[in-house]
């Protein structure tokens, strides 16, 4: 236990951080550097830079493409609730990165909704998992990696809930661990009581973070580069109006 705990708390986080940051930057750098000389916007939507920005953001924030008429609104609901919940849960966890002193008002304010999101998120997760099993066509296109990432996130959620409601670690100790890591200082395990529930949760989160740069989860960054959405207009010599003779 001692060795494992030491690894999860004092070694793995640095590896995770490097893999995550370098990995994500590398993936984005690749997309950034690829040339894209041919404008290929899919109309309608973007005749100006402004409207292209609006279109990308509406896809990022509201998942507009799924929401539109004859899109896939059930999938939209599942996916949107999942992503929003995930975001809220992340925001809630900010408190562990802040000092023992006062937590800013807005971080305190998202605690309630963050916890609600943690309770809710399993539902869309199970839906996203089940639709891959139930629908023959979605089952056909699914790869093991698709199930893996859903199960991984589900295990992160469940271990988090377990640590929150069943086997609570001492919150001051959790903060101490995170703050030590941020200060690049080793955590003295003899001075804190970290239970297994916390260690499992912390471990799974790190696995997820390291997995991201190698996986489809990168869609989060990729959407900002998608030429059919980011390109605007194209064919500047095109005219809809004749010049007056």
């Amino acid at each position: 236990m001692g060795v494992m705990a030491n690894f999860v708390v004092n070694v793995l986080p640095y590896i995770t951080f490097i893999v995550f940051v370098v990995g994500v930057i590398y993936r984005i750098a690749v997309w950034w550097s690829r040339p894209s000389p041919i404008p290929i916007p899919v109309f309608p939507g973007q005749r100006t830079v402004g409207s292209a920005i609006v279109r990308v953001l509406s896809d990022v924030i509201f998942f507009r493409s799924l929401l539109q008429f004859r899109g896939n609104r059930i999938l939209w609901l599942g996916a949107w609730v999942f992503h929003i919940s995930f975001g809220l849960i992340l925001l809630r966890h900010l408190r562990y990165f802040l000092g023992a002193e006062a937590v800013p008002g807005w971080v305190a304010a998202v605690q309630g909704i963050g916890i609600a999101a943690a309770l809710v998120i399993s539902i869309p997760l199970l839906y996203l998992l089940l639709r891959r099993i139930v629908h023959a066509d979605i089952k056909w296109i699914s790869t093991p990696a698709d199930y893996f990432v859903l199960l991984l996130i589900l295990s992160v959620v469940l271990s988090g809930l377990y640590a929150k409601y069943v086997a609570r670690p001492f919150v001051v100790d959790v903060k101490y661990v995170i703050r030590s890591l941020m200060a690049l200082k080793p955590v003295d395990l003899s001075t804190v009581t970290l239970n297994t529930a916390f260690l499992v949760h912390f471990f799974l989160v790190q696995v997820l973070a390291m997995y991201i740069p190698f996986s489809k989860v990168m869609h989060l960054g990729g959407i900002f580069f998608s030429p059919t959405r980011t390109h605007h207009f194209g064919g500047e010599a095109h005219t809809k109006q004749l010049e007056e003779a």
Partner: protein
Amino acid sequence: MGEQLEKLYDVELKPGAGENYVCNLTKPEFAEVMKTNIPKEPLPDEQMVEVALKRLDQLRKERKSLQLYLDICVRCGACVKQCHYFLGTGDPKNTPVGRAELLRKVYRAHFTISGKLFGPLVGAQKLTPEILKNEWYKYFYQCSECRRCSVFCPYGIDQAEITMAGREVLNSVGLATKYITQVISQVYKHGNNLGIPEPAFKYNCQFLEEEIKETTGVDVKIPVDKEKAEILYLPPSADLFTNTDTMIGVAKVFHAVGADWTMSTYASEAANFGLFFSYDDLKAINLRVVETAKKIGAKLVIFGECGHAWRAARQFMEAMNGPLPFKFMNILEYTAEQIRKGKLKLDKSRNDDVVVTLHDPCNYARAGDLVEETRFVIKSVCNNFVDMDESVIKEKTFCCGGGGGLLTEEIMELRMKGGLPRATAVKEVVEAHGVNYLAAPCAIDKAQLPLVMQHYEIPVQVGGIHDLVSKALILEGQEEFEAKKKAEEEAAKAAAAAVPAVCGLCDAEFATMDECCEHAEKEHKISKEQCDMVCEPKK
């Protein structure tokens, strides 16, 4: 949405259903004239994989779209039921994601860390000649590059980009289709897809001039190869042979506004099959247009009723062969503008025999920003227009089933299956609104949709928008000609009626035909329409 369209989406999954649809392979004489470098024959198996991977690596480094769309798909399946070939065949490899995965699995196995480490667990599979021949060659030629999936994808993943890259990789190992390479070779030889040689092209234009003269009495010119002109017009070459009413309509519009225009026999084709084949050929074909326009000093280049032509022009021309010393537009934008300016005298009632619906060509709607002008022109020239269901028009329009270089005989069954969604939508408006004219402003539509409508037994005529413009447009001097013609016909009829007649049934004699007809109706119960069966002029 109607019940029939709703039912379309209940697709039974039939893996392997698309296996049998295979385009014929190219021939050496076509392969060797392509601008992109392709082997004359498929490479031997032992060379295939290496060459293909090299090309794929090159392409993903050249195109952001390809690299990104190989990377970010989450296989959510939002695109699955948006593809007409999947709705028609039920083959999961014909879903946009399923088709793209054929390429992605190879990309992962050879170019990603996770694919190299975990193989099939992350959906990676190493390339084999069989994958190229049995999967890629079949399924990348069961995509019409219509880009409907991109509208519904949460990341805008464009299957056309994947298909175009897949086909370029196939080209590098000598797996190209006969249809596409043959068409492109004809452009290089004759300037147009149909391979119409210069004399025949000019002869057909004269023939159409005569036809206009006969019906309207007006001398409308269809100029070819003028040395200098303000406007260069590019028709789809089919408009000179099969869809002549469209060409006539366009010529009449130019005549009515007094435009200084010409066509060219060097670039006598609007369409650009390079779009279905390779960037090199796309660029080379388009260059013929740009060169011609520069040579004749055109200020405006106008593209005819053709979907792919419009995408090649709108999105590729300037990027590939720019900067352009001219402006360009689509003929529908041009005609719409002339109507707005009040330059065309239109009589809508001349189209009262038709109830029109519009098939938006994919490349007008999704690549060309051209959905309002089409409707505006139709509504300006006829009284009865009905749109199909909102889910199948404008940017959500369904492909006709024959785009993307698939308009070839050997895969007719696939084409009919791919046409099913469009046919279903048309059927609904035919039954609900009595639609009898399907306007399809694209040469591929005009070749494909009549077959689809016949296949699904839907009683509509398929035609262009300028066919309707042609009917409604009244040229200067045309009314006088028509009045004169009508007067002559009536005079001839009256002259014929004034002749003494005899009843064939009872031999009674009458001073005029009318009197005889009245007699026949009264005495022999023969209706006046059938009068000529009994009454004859007296000899």
